[in-house]
């Protein structure tokens, strides 16, 4: 077991590497819950349902054409594309989550006394492939 620093994290959207522009990312995996409580029970009983999830990324805006966050993400809003997140960075055998995701929102924020930042909200679509990275 080892603690892992977040700086190694890799993220890409639609096969475009966004890591160099990203400061925070999050993938939430969740499930529907169905209340299957029947008469005679003293507490609720639940059953799991369909899986789902959401994701977010945010970071520092970069004007780089083609590969910068604005160039990559803004045209993808409303479309479903592949999102890859490697929480321990790139490397053989290291974990990876690969999933189709609907790009819900792209936001740019311009504080007067700091760098321009961006953020992106994702809705996961279909199951997550969590197979470790290949050699």
């Amino acid at each position, binding site marked *: 077991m080892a603690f892992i620093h977040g700086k190694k994290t890799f993220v890409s959207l639609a096969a475009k590497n966004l890591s160099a522009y990203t*400061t925070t990312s999050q993938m939430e995996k969740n499930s529907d819950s169905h209340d299957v409580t029947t008469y005679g029970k003293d507490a609720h009983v639940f059953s799991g349902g369909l899986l789902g999830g959401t994701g977010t990324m945010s970071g*520092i805006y970069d004007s780089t054409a083609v590969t910068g966050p604005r160039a990559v993400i803004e045209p993808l809003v409303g479309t479903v594309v592949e999102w890859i997140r490697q929480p321990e*960075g790139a490397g053989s055998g290291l974990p990876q989550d690969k999933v189709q995701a609907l790009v819900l929102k792209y936001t740019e924020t311009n504080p007067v006394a700091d760098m321009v930042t961006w953020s992106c909200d994702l809705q996961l679509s279909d199951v997550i492939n969590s197979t470790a990275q290949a050699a």
Partner: protein
Amino acid sequence: MNLASLMQEIATRLGTVPGLRIHAQPPKTITPPAAIVSYPESVQYDQTYGRGMTRVEALKVWLVVGIVTDRAGRDSLSEYVSDEGEKSIKLCLEDYEGETWDDLTVASVEFDVVTIAGVDYMAAGLTINLACQGTPAA
């Protein structure tokens, strides 16, 4: 980000401002009017994933222009720390597209008195923040 290259590029750019002797690092001796590019307070690595961005925080450029009690010195220093005019250090640096940085902001200026060869000079310390490309991890 190479700090020496960055300090040198700032000094080279400052060389376009009229009337200043430029030092790209703290010198042994200063002959006013002079601008000295000094070290930053800190370098912040890993500002994005994969060493994508490095920040250079509070790099100082010191201006030593005139004697404290000299009105002409005050007027001259005022031109260099102004946010307008051909001698404005802020405009000189912020209106220039650097090769060793992506973004440069002259954030503030503080004032102090320095004594050189027994004479009190008015000094202005400009605080500069820079955002630079990191060196992406292999």
